[in-house]
């Protein structure tokens, strides 16, 4: 997936996660800034889930700013997918 523009998905609400995506130059790698209220308990899980998601969409160069307020894994997947697709201008549906 090729990222074209800055985009975001999610919110600062409790049990949600706000994910901001920014394209970076090729070779810059994955720059992930992760903040979470459940860092101690789920920090590693969160990072793994994000990296798995980026693997799935074959994104190796990206800057992600993630602010997690205790979102469940399906929420995180959904927010990540939406943010990435918005950044790649691939989203379909009413929010296009």
């Amino acid at each position, binding site marked *: 997936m090729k990222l074209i523009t800055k985009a975001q998905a999610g919110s600062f609400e409790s049990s949600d996660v706000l994910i901001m995506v920014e394209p970076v130059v090729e070779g810059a790698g994955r720059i992930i800034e992760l903040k979470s209220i459940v860092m101690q308990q*789920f920090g590693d899980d969160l990072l793994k889930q994000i990296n798995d998601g980026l693997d799935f969409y074959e994104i190796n160069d990206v800057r992600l700013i993630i602010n997690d307020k*205790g979102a469940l894994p399906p929420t995180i997947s959904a927010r990540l997918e939406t943010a990435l697709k918005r950044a790649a201008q691939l989203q379909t549906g009413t929010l296009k």
Partner: protein
Amino acid sequence: MPSELIGIGKLEPFEGAFTKLKKGWMEEETVPPPVKAKMPHSNKVCDSLRDAIIRSNPKDGMTVSFHHHLRGGDNLVFEAIKILAELGIKDITLAASSLTTAHDPILPYFKDGTITQIYASGIRGELGKALAQGVMPKPFVIHSHGGRVRSVHTGKIKIDLAILAASSSDIEGNATGAHGPSAFGSMGYAAIDSWYAKQVIVVTDNIVDYPCVPQSVTQNYIDYVVKVDSIGDPSKIAGGTTRITKAPMDLQIARLAAQVIEHSGELEDGFSFQVGAGGASLAVAKYIRKIMKQRTIKGSFILGGVTSYGVDMLNEGLFRSIFDVQSFDAAVSTSLMDNPYHIEIPAGLYANPFNCGCMTNKLDIVVLGALEIDTNFNVNVITGSEGYVRGASGGHSDTASGANLTVVVCPSFRGRIPIVKEKVHTIVTPGESIDVLVTERGICVNPQRKELKQNLEKAGIVTKDIVDLAKEVELITGKAKPIEILDRIVGVVEYRDGTVIDVIHQVKE
């Protein structure tokens, strides 16, 4: 658990909720209360709190006690500790019936050696965080409301100076929380302090003509009386009624809990009832009220922490009486003042296990909350998900052990943090005291309570094995990494009989 701890002494491990009570007496010796004398018509009134504290002859290593009936509006603890610190007093043991976020301002005195140990039923906010981080040299002790009374009787808590806020007092120290501009309701936790402290100061913002009625504490125990401009923030002390939650999940849990109670076999004419003031817990009262009206059931008494909701039920004739050790909202004080069946009780009568029968022993139904509950039904109400102290033992273990039906209501997880889990971080109330857990994701009956399970099944209420529920929750949230702790023990949790049910370790930062 170690057998001894510096700053506390020997630790007697918990060996069952009734192991010590079964004997019928308490083996520990009790200490006599002090005997004092005053000349006729002498003057107790001091110019200021500072003046009263100086007259009480404060010393290094003393124990100072407070009640927490001012709730979130309390400013007296801070004012008093500040004065003691200015007088250069060190090594104080602070024995407050509970500490809340209103007490955050005393944190600097934890760090400079003014306060070196805490006895309380609850600790929250910045204080709870700092204590878990190991700020204090001596381990703190968490006790239940009943257990605190026992500790004072045995001299484990030896109060040198009790500083008791009252919303009204006369010049002899007959005092109450039932009226005055800062009326806060019952003074139940303060009674034992007034009887046992070597010196007692009553602090009020409202001196009334002699005699002050009702006498929540009486003049024969009071050394000094101080009139101050303010005992705290009246909007937080005397403000408003407690509202029932509107959160859909809490209401759903409460609805399920009410169904469980309705079909438990305990909801009968003459039953007694206690609910906590927290979200789902208080909301249960709303549904029980409805069921009581539908089935024309009349209860005997409401116990405990009392909200205006309980007062409404009394006024509607749904219960014959309220026994009030602590008022959760100030709207209660009018009822306490005017209704002879709304009765203020001291903490010993409320919950001390070592007497001829405290009122929690007469409880039929209690609904309690939980920060965590494990698959053995052990409940944590003291440490949060980061390992900080952020809750209160309060009457949790007292009421759970006494009630015929102890219902715990809580969500199965909060945010992403599992609440129902294999092992709780800190045990406050043993699983043997808990009969049923009600969550939004299932109802779990303690396997020891077969009859209850049958009653619920007969009514068509589906129950779930708590082990299965914990697994289900873990599938949703993922497996949380345990809190990282150090070897050092920063606090102990006493069971109501004085044994130690758990210890709290310093958290690794």
